């Protein structure tokens, strides 16, 4: 088996509080794939993304890049491997610099001659669909869509291998979200990128990712290929999340699973399975014992004591999908 590009092992990130934003998460990102991370507020998906690019230090566990801990690397070398496009792209651009300066900044930081590399940056602008006129504007003078493209261009100037996009379509109208997703896909092909896409929009995730990880209150609850996870979610939370997305076509509507209760505060996560307070299929064991990740199909794992599984002995008495309607 080839070495994964990124290997996350037992990663926990604890903020003062204590707030266990990410709690014992392990997963791999293979070179060239697109991994989606979905979850609601407090799930820790953004913290996970920021920890991979070393904006947060792991409290325990580690993030390994090609088999080596990210913190053992030369800082500048590591920055050329992994980049992040922030959720709020407009405010991720330093407000007093022009777009040209913003695009030169990564080259300057890495001591690369601007004259030598500028042609490449101009080519990138073309590929991203940014007109040259934008170069002499300030961030507050460009549209939201352009700010997003500038942020993507900046991240790609250093030719990273991993690009993390935090909520790439949040706040975009549907009429232009397709453009952005097409762009990301095109860039992946032309630059051989590996993607980690963090989003709460399940339609987007289903459409553009190869594999999906579902997080809830800092825990990874399910991971698997996009096809298998969307068609046969094993964790009741994943199933509810998928069913919660509204569908236009009345004939294609899935039975809704309306979860009861609120998302608990990550400052006081419930014991046992974190999801047990809202789960329709909760049993005594769920309230005390933290379920470990377990394989349920090829490349499909979930952390649930009683997952929805079509044909396993243990799963036979589990409630069928959609029974909580």
């Amino acid at each position, binding site marked *: 088996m080839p070495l994964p590009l990124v290997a996350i092992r037992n990663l926990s990130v604890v903020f003062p509080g204590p707030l266990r934003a990410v709690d014992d998460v392990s997963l791999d990102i293979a070179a060239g794939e697109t991994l989606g991370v979905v979850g609601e507020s407090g799930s820790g998906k953004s913290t996970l993304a*920021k920890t991979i*690019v070393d*904006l947060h230090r792991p409290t325990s566990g580690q993030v390994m890049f090609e088999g080596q801990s990210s913190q053992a690397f030369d*800082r*500048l070398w590591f*920055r*050329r491997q992994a*980049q*992040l496009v*922030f*959720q*709020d792209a407009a*405010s*991720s*651009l*330093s*407000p*007093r610099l022009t777009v040209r300066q913003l695009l030169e*900044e*990564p080259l300057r*930081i*890495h001591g690369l001659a601007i004259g030598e590399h500028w042609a490449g940056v101009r080519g990138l602008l073309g590929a991203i669909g940014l007109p040259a006129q934008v170069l002499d504007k300030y961030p*507050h003078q460009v549209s939201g869509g352009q700010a997003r493209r500038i*942020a993507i261009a*900046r*991240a790609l100037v*250093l030719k990273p291998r991993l690009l993390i996009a935090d909520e790439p379509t949040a706040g975009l109208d549907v009429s232009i979200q397709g453009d952005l997703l097409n762009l990301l896909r095109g860039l992946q092909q032309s630059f051989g990128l590996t993607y980690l896409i963090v989003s709460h929009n399940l339609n987007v995730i289903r459409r553009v990712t190869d594999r999906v990880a579902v997080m809830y209150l800092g825990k990874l609850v399910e991971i698997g290929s996009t096809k298998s996870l969307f068609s046969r979610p094993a964790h009741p939370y994943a199933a509810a999340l998928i069913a919660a997305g509204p569908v236009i076509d009345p004939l294609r509507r899935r039975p809704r699973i309306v979860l009861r209760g609120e998302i608990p505060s990550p400052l006081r996560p419930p014991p046992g399975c974190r999801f047990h307070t809202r789960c329709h299929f909760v049993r005594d064991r769920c309230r005390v014992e933290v379920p470990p990740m377990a394989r349920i199909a090829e490349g499909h794992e979930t952390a649930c004591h009683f997952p929805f599984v079509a044909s396993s002995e243990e799963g036979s008495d589990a409630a069928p999908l959609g029974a909580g309607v």
Partner: protein
Amino acid sequence: MSTIFSHIWRSSTGRFGLILAVAIIGSAAFAPWLAGDPNRIDVFNRFAGPSWQHWMGTDHLGRDLFSRILHGARIAMEVAAAVTAIALSLGTVLGVAAGYGPRQVERPILILFDILYSFPNLIFALALVAILGPGLDNVVIIVAMTVMPHFGRIARAQVLRLKHAPFLEAERVLGASTARIVFRHVIPNIAGPLIVVAGMEVPAVITIEAGLSFLGLGARPPLASWGTLLHDGYTYLSQSGWPVFFAGMMLTTATLAFTLFGEALRDAIDPRLRMDP
């Protein structure tokens, strides 16, 4: 830059302050060419009233008051510029260090600010003069120390506001060092409020300098500072009221001009009051 200027120009008080401030700075800069020797003694012409020869009259040694007042403006402007420059740079460095640095750096700086802040300006200045001795250079250092925490606190508050801004995190992800982030991205973005504070501090600095010089702790005779002019004027008030009148006028005008200008500058830069980008 031009938008800030036009914003100031559009407010009538701002325009008034700006014109007066420019006039004062200009007359201070060109004092040697605009007026004669401020120290030429003419004992036969003491306590003269305003005339064509001496526009503001003469003092107890027969020196030309107009010339002394213009040279006084020079001292006031020099002190104000030096104090603001020192306080602004030192306050910014300490404030940014406190805001951006670790807790071990932040604590002692905040304690220093609190100590400097807790003394009333003039009394603190008097105490420092007692230690350092009188003289204009010492006045500059002393006044800079008393107003520095103001800049420092503003700088720290602005840094704390920015500290977790996505654009700073984005620079870190690109690999920027802390020094690069501070100088290229933090300081340019906190400069606005600091410049506003600088503008607002100038009249206060002018007053403190005049006060210390009045008490004989700043500019020493025969140097013409508005404070010493006032002091000499009071001493000989029974002979002539003109020195006190003109020196007091000038001090008041300068304070008013820089206050109006500072307020207009604040309105122009402060985004909360600004209408359109």
